[in-house]
C-alpha cells in the first residue's frame, strides 16, 4: 500500500509532468486563462491518463513491440473521444471554452509518455496509481498557472475579487502572459531545486 501511495505521489511532486518533465505544455498554456478551464482540462486529461494506463497495462502482453505506438494511440484516442462526447453532452460551455484543445489531448506528450515509459511494463494496479498521480500533478500545475494568470489578468479568482482596487494587467490573459508565467515558474522551481542540493 505504501508503495502504491509512493507511485501516486511521484507524479504529483517529484516527477510533476509540467514543471519537472516539461511535457504537454500546449494545453497547459492555452486553457489556463481561468481556473475553471484549468480544472476542466485537468479532469479530462486525468480521465484519459487513467483509462489509457489501465488498458495498455492490461494489453501489454498482446501488443507486438513493433507497432506499439499506433496501438497506444488508438487506445488513447478512444478515451479522448469518450471525454469529448461526455463534455459536449453535460457541459457545453466548458467544451466551447476549451475548443480544439480537447481533441488535442490525444497528442499530449504526457499520456503517450506514460504509456511508453511506464504502463507497458508495469502491473495494472501500479499503472492505475501512476496515471492518477500524473493526472493530479497535471491538474495542480494547471490550477497554479491559471490562478496566477486569472488573478493578474482579470483581477478575479473563480469569479470573486480577492483584492479590491487591484488594477489587472490584461497582458496576462493573453498568450504572451502564459509564456511569461510558465518561464518564470520554471526558473523559480529551478532555484528551489538548486538550493536543496
Amino acid at each position, binding site marked *: 500500500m505504501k508503495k502504491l501511495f509512493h507511485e501516486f505521489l511521484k507524479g504529483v511532486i517529484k516527477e510533476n509532468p509540467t514543471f519537472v518533465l516539461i511535457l504537454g505544455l500546449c494545453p497547459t498554456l492555452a486553457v489556463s486563462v481561468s481556473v475553471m478551464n484549468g480544472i476542466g482540462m485537468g479532469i479530462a486529461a486525468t480521465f484519459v491518463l487513467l483509462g489509457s494506463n489501465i488498458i495498455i497495462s492490461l494489453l501489454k502482453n498482446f501488443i507486438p513491440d513493433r507497432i506499439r505506438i499506433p496501438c497506444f*494511440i488508438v487506445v488513447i484516442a478512444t478515451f479522448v473521444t469518450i471525454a469529448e462526447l461526455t463534455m459536449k453532452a453535460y457541459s457545453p460551455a466548458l467544451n466551447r471554452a476549451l475548443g480544439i484543445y480537447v481533441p488535442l489531448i490525444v497528442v499530449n506528450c504526457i499520456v503517450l509518455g506514460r504509456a511508453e515509459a511506464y504502463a507497458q511494463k508495469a502491473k495494472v494496479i501500479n499503472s492505475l496509481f501512476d496515471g492518477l498521480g500524473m493526472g493530479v500533478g497535471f491538474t495542480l500545475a494547471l490550477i497554479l498557472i491559471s490562478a496566477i494568470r486569472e488573478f493578474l489578468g482579470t483581477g478575479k479568482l473563480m469569479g470573486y475579487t480577492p483584492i479590491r482596487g487591484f488594477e489587472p494587467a490584461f497582458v496576462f490573459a493573453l498568450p*504572451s502572459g*502564459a509564456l511569461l508565467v510558465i*518561464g518564470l515558474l520554471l526558473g523559480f522551481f529551478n532555484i528551489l531545486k538548486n538550493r536543496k542540493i
Partner: protein
Amino acid sequence: MSVAQFLTIFISAVFIYNVILSRFLGLCSFVAISKETKPALAMSLAVMFVTTMSSIITWFIYRFLLIPFGLTYLRTISFILVIATFVQFVEMVIRKFSPPLYRFFGIYLPLITVNCAVLGVAVLNIDMFFINGRAIAGSFYYSVFQGVCVGLGYTLAMLLMSGIRERLDLCNIPKSVKDFPLAFIIASIMSLSFLGFNGFKF
C-alpha cells in the same frame, strides 16, 4: 471563394494566430529543437510538408467517409491514425529514395506524429470550413491553404527563435533560467510583439 479570403487566412495563420506564439501548438518541439538554425529549419520544413498533406488527407476523409456515414464523432481517432500512418510512410519513402534528404530530416520526421500542430490544423480546418456538417464553398482550397500557412507560421517562429538563441550562447545567463525557462520568456516577448498584428484590417 475570393482572394481577400485567402489573404485573411494567410495573415491570421502566419501572424495573428501564429501556431506557436498564440495557439501554443507544437510548443514542445519549438523549445526543444530551436537551439540552432539548421535543425530548426529542417524541422520547420518537415512540419510544413506534413501539415499541408494532412490537411488534404483529413479533408477527404471527413467529407467522403465520416459525413456520409454519420461517423463524425470518430474524427479524432481516424485523423490521428491516418496522420501517424502517413508520417511513417513518408519516412520509409524518403529513406528509400533520398538518403541525403533523410539525413537532413533525420529524427524530426517521426517526431511530427505527436506534434500538436498537425492534428490541430486538421481539427481547425474542420471547425472553420464545415458548417453543420456541410462543406462551405471552396472549403477544400481553404483547408489546404491554411495547412500551408500554419506551416509557414511555424517556420517563421522557429527561425526567429533559433536566431535569438544562437546569439544567447555568448551571453552570461543566470543558472536557474538557463535553457527552458529563458526560451519561454523569449517566446513571451516575441508573442507580445506579434500582438501588434492584431490591428490588421481589410
